[in-house]
């Protein structure tokens, strides 16, 4: 029997459900990027599962012609863990926002990463609560004035990539909604990674937090403000390549003028370093989207996948003990017969 070769297109991944995000929302471009990318990834729609929690981003699964669960607030990584545990053969993608994944669902996110469940976790970071109409989020900057912080936020924000790296993530990357090619290249790497992958997507909420990333993403500043990380290459950026990242005397990466240290003085990016210290330091090069900010893959290392290990234990026990016999187990201790 030969399998029919079907070429899939973007249409094959569109559910036909009308997307209900606000006009101009960054979520649309992410959705398009994903729908256009999937036909290239050699996955069948029936083997893809999108799992989400609650929030604007979490409506994503409804628009995908795949299997999907729109779950409850924050719990998407846990629901997805259940899917992957039960069926390691599936491609399980998790979609959520900064509030969903770092506030109410922070616990599930870090544990899914720590276990290295084979989940592809995309966090759309817009630094605001959109669906509840504009409260500050765990990634909002100090001083942010919102409906729930009329005098400015006094909550110190999370750095999502630092959280993921601190949670032992094996794949950590960042991209943004203004560059489809970059998104697709990043999502492709995410998909190819074996194990838990975490991608932060800078996403503009044009209604409640418009222009939050303008300081780094506007076309005219991008050259000097985005630092593209490329494995094996010196970290160098700037409209004329005049800037770079070098390690100072304390071992901390800092932005430098290339002319000051020379190209050989720049830090060479290594995604595969077993030790996450440098990746962590790079994730903290900018503490707000007003400073030169690295994008791309920060870390990509291999560690045993949770559900594969589960399966291996089952197989090893089966091999050792033979198939389970419930009747035998029930009668395995002391028994007696009443005539």
């Amino acid at each position, binding site marked *: 029997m030969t399998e029919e070769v079907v070429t899939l297109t973007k249409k094959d991944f569109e559910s036909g459900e009308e997307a209900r995000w606000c006009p101009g929302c960054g979520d649309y471009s992410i959705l398009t990027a994903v729908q256009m990318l999937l036909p290239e990834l050699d996955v069948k729609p029936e083997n893809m599962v999108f799992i989400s929690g609650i929030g604007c981003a979490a409506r994503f699964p409804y628009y995908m012609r795949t299997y999907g669960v729109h*779950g409850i607030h924050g719990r998407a990584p846990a629901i997805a863990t259940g899917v992957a545990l039960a069926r390691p053969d599936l491609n399980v993608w998790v979609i959520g926002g900064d509030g969903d994944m770092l506030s109410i669902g922070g616990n599930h996110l870090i544990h899914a990463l720590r276990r290295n469940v084979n989940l592809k976790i995309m966090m759309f970071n817009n630094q605001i609560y959109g669906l509840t109409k504009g409260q500050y989020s765990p990634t909002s900057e100090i001083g942010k004035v919102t409906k729930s912080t009329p005098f400015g936020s006094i909550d110190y924000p999370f750095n999502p990539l630092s959280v993921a790296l601190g949670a032992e993530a094996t794949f950590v990357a960042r991209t943004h909604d203004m560059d489809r090619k970059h998104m697709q290249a990043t999502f492709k790497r995410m998909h190819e990674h074996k194990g838990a992958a975490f991608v932060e997507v800078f996403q503009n909420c044009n209604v409640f937090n418009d222009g939050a990333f303008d300081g780094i993403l506007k076309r005219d500043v991008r050259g000097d403000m985005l630092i593209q990380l490329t494995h094996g290459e010196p970290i160098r950026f700037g409209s004329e390549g005049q800037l770079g990242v070098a390690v100072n005397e304390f071992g901390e990466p800092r932005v430098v003028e290339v002319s000051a240290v020379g190209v050989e003085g720049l830090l060479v990016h290594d995604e595969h370093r077993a030790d996450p210290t440098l990746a962590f330091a790079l994730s903290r090069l900018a503490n707000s989207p007003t400073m030169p900010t690295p994008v791309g893959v920060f870390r990509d290392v291999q560690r045993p996948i949770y559900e594969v290990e589960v399966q291996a234990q089952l197989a090893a026990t089966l091999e050792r003990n033979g198939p389970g016999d419930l009747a035998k187990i029930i009668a395995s201790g002391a028994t007696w017969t009443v005539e």
Partner: protein
Amino acid sequence: MTIDTPVDPNRDARTETLDRVVIRFAGDSGDGMQLVGDRFTELSAAFGNDLATLPNYPAEIRAPAGTIAGVSSFQVHISDHDIVTPGDAPNVLIAMNPAALIANLNDMVPGTTLIINSDSFEQRDLDKAGLTTNPLEGNSLAAFNVYTVPMTSITVGATKDLGVKPRDAERSKNFFALGLLCWMYTRPVKPVLDWIEKQFAAKPLILAANTAAFKAGRNFGETAELFDHPYEVRPAALRPGNYRNVVGNSATVYGLVAAAQSAKLPLVYASYPITPASDILHDLSKLKNFGIKTLQAEDEIAAAAIAIGAAFAGSLAITGTSGPGLDLKSEAIALAISLELPFVIVDVQRGGPSTGLPTKTEQADLMLAMYGRHGESPLPIVAAYTPSQCFDAAFEACRLAIKYRTPVMLLTDGYLANGAEPWLIPDLDALPDISVEFATEPNHGDEFWPYLRDPETLARPWAIPGTPKLMHRIGGIEKSGIGLDGADGSGSISYSPENHEAMVELRARKIANIANDIPLTMLDDETGDAEVLVLGWGSTWGSITAGLRRIRARNLKVAHAHLTHLNPFPKDLGDVLRRYDKILVPEMNLGQLSRLVRAEYLVDAQSYTKVQGVPFRAVEIETKILEMLG
């Protein structure tokens, strides 16, 4: 039915035969009382006695040694006939220290026996127990048959030549107590020695010390002339068949596994450690060659969410917990109600609210199971009523979950979970087939409608990822999901007011309809004309049954209805209740079932409550019924 007891050639001719005895081992948490209680129970089970047990231990792993708070006890009731409770009051108390004596003395009836480790009544032991006088001096114990035995020093003496450290030698004193009790009640010796050998194989010195202590205890009974003669309790004439001893949590595990096998579904159990439910996780974790996947989640919520993900992916998904964990799982359970996915939640009830009494029993989660979610979110509730019956209840919970694509609550409790009784080993081949067929084809033209329902059960199709053409999205938002008689079953988001009301009613009807698929009320009314009906659910079955036996022994009439299904109720329950002039509802809560049946059937059900973390005594039920009979 006759029981042939092999005659022991060494049987003491003075042995007195008892029809039953209740023994309570009590000591400090570190004294190994649960261990020797378990051993005595296993011995008695294998010997053929009927039995019931009541472990009772503090929540602290090691409360301050020697204090009242640190007392741990294990009560076992053995008999030569069918019994249903661990016994109202012990006939014999083994007290390893002053705290154990004082903490349990209130439960002892005058004329019963106290066996006391006299080595632990030094001034500092009395101080730890908060005693100003030594109860072994003076005549405060004059109403009892008191035997003081220097258990610690005899044990140390018996083990001194083995090279055991003095501290380890002392710790073997629980086996001395076990040995003594084995002599007193003519228990076989070999199974204990075999068990010690197996259990402590890796620690030869401890093995030798425990063996020596056990033998010393037995020899002490035989030779000390302290005790007049040994007793025996002959095997019970139970229903013919093969038996083993089982605690409720183990029976629950076997029931879940049997259901997964009958359903031909892989079992996924996600849970967070919590007393008294953790043993379910422990036991299932061992069964890897059954293909069972267990996951110790990061929290209770995750455990429920992981199970839901596994259910979506086509597994028999189960989570287990106790009260505080159930609070946390509420939102996820409501998600499963909206998704209409099979999911079993095992709640091993314990004393609440909040942390409450983690190691003690209670039945106060019924309203939580029934109503503890926002919105109109009904689900079926199954309750187990004896330790071994947890097997059937677990199987039934899975059957309903799979057939009706709904979360199902299985209620057990701390007493059932840890209590033991003989179990007539079930014939697994005789269990019903509860297998399920996943959807394989589109059901609406070329489309797949996830909420196109079976008109009989109202269940929606279960289409699992990996199946071509059936890709679908489900979620917690209200949906077009009537899916009957041509109505929309697409599952698309719908905020229409009429649709929401229709969905709320449909979800309620789906659960209510299950009444047609469960047994009628389990009713015990010998003559059919009793005036008083006792209505119970869950683990009060034993206490109620024992109370009824006492009433009937007085030639009085009383009926007993016991509920295994709390939602929906059996469809004849209203008729049954209305047949009786008086209804008594004993519960280990403040009257939750009584309120439900009063509201549902407008009957004058009288609540009788006890919330002390221990089961009702038979005498309490008896007294209350007598009061009602006037």
